[in-house]
């Protein structure tokens, strides 16, 4: 969707246009859900975060300033703050939000269906990819929240370092420092796996 079209849709949403809102929901919900799931590792809570994020688009569309940020950046900032709320709640009440009867699939939902190739050009077999996906999932979950946010935004969500720094409300240098620490940690852990 072109930025001008998107801005027009946001203005329409601010005026109460439900059809415009539906189009923006259809355009943004999947990337936001992928982000929230990688942040929280819990599909049910991630869906709650995405619903709340987009309902805030409905109620606060008039506050969006197209000249200052892309809509996706604005939405990811809201989603990230909601994810932090969930993580804090989990820390305060361990086990309270850990799925249970809400169908949590922690560490059990990396459906890998893409024909990736490794850096040597050899096909990576499905079983190996799924094992790797589960390992990456657990390693991401173990990263501090800000490192995880930085890596997910830049690697998976496709934001530039500058855009990711805006979402995290940090300087670009601070964002890149988080990215470097996250990548070093993951490389170290994955290397240790290969050594075992």
């Amino acid at each position, binding site marked *: 969707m072109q930025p001008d079209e998107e801005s027009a849709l946001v203005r329409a949403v601010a005026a109460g246009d439900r059809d415009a809102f539906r189009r923006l929901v*259809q355009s943004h*919900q999947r990337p936001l*859900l992928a982000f929230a799931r990688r942040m929280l590792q819990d599909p049910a809570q991630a869906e709650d975060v*995405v619903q709340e994020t987009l309902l805030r688009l409905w109620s606060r569309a008039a506050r969006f300033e197209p000249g200052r940020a892309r809509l996706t950046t604005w939405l990811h900032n809201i989603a990230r703050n909601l994810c932090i709320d969930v993580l804090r709640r989990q820390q305060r009440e361990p086990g309270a939000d850990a799925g249970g009867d809400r169908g949590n699939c922690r560490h059990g939902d*990396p459906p890998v269906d893409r024909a990736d190739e490794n850096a040597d050009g050899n096909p990576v077999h499905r079983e190996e990819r799924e094992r*790797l996906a589960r390992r*990456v999932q657990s390693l991401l979950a173990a990263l501090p929240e800000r490192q995880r946010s930085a890596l997910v935004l*830049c*690697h998976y969500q496709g934001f530039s370092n500058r855009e990711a720094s805006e979402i995290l409300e940090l300087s670009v240098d601070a964002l890149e420092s988080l990215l470097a*620490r996250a990548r070093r940690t993951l490389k170290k852990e994955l290397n240790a796996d290969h050594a075992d």
Partner: protein
Amino acid sequence: MQIDEFTELLDRYGSRSEDWPTSQRDAMRALLSASNAAREALHAAQQLDVALDAYVMQSPDLTERIMARLPRSRLQEVLDWLLPSMPSLWWRPAFAAAMPLLLGIAVGATVDVAGVDAVNSDWDAQEQIVLDSQIGLIAALNAGEGDE
């Protein structure tokens, strides 16, 4: 560019050269062509990207769930109050607009027409009595004038 700086930049920007600042790319390529250690560092960064890429997921469509949570408009609330069980949205306003007509039909079908006729008959009778009394009075007056 030295190997330490190169590995630091790899951790900041990743293994894809297009994500690197353009000002660093030439120095990066020069180092890669000259240094085995740089090539090994790049390979390790590429392996990390492959591992990260393995963690993909399919996301369900939440559109309808989100639309269902939108606050309802005032018109919708009124219509829901009027017609709580109607599933279709588009013909509700038409149905609401037709309510006065339906009300009129309902009133016309249920009011007792015989009662209305009875009321009309009473009025006719009273009017006849008044007329008769006026005719009687005029006749009496005329008779009085004749006697004189």
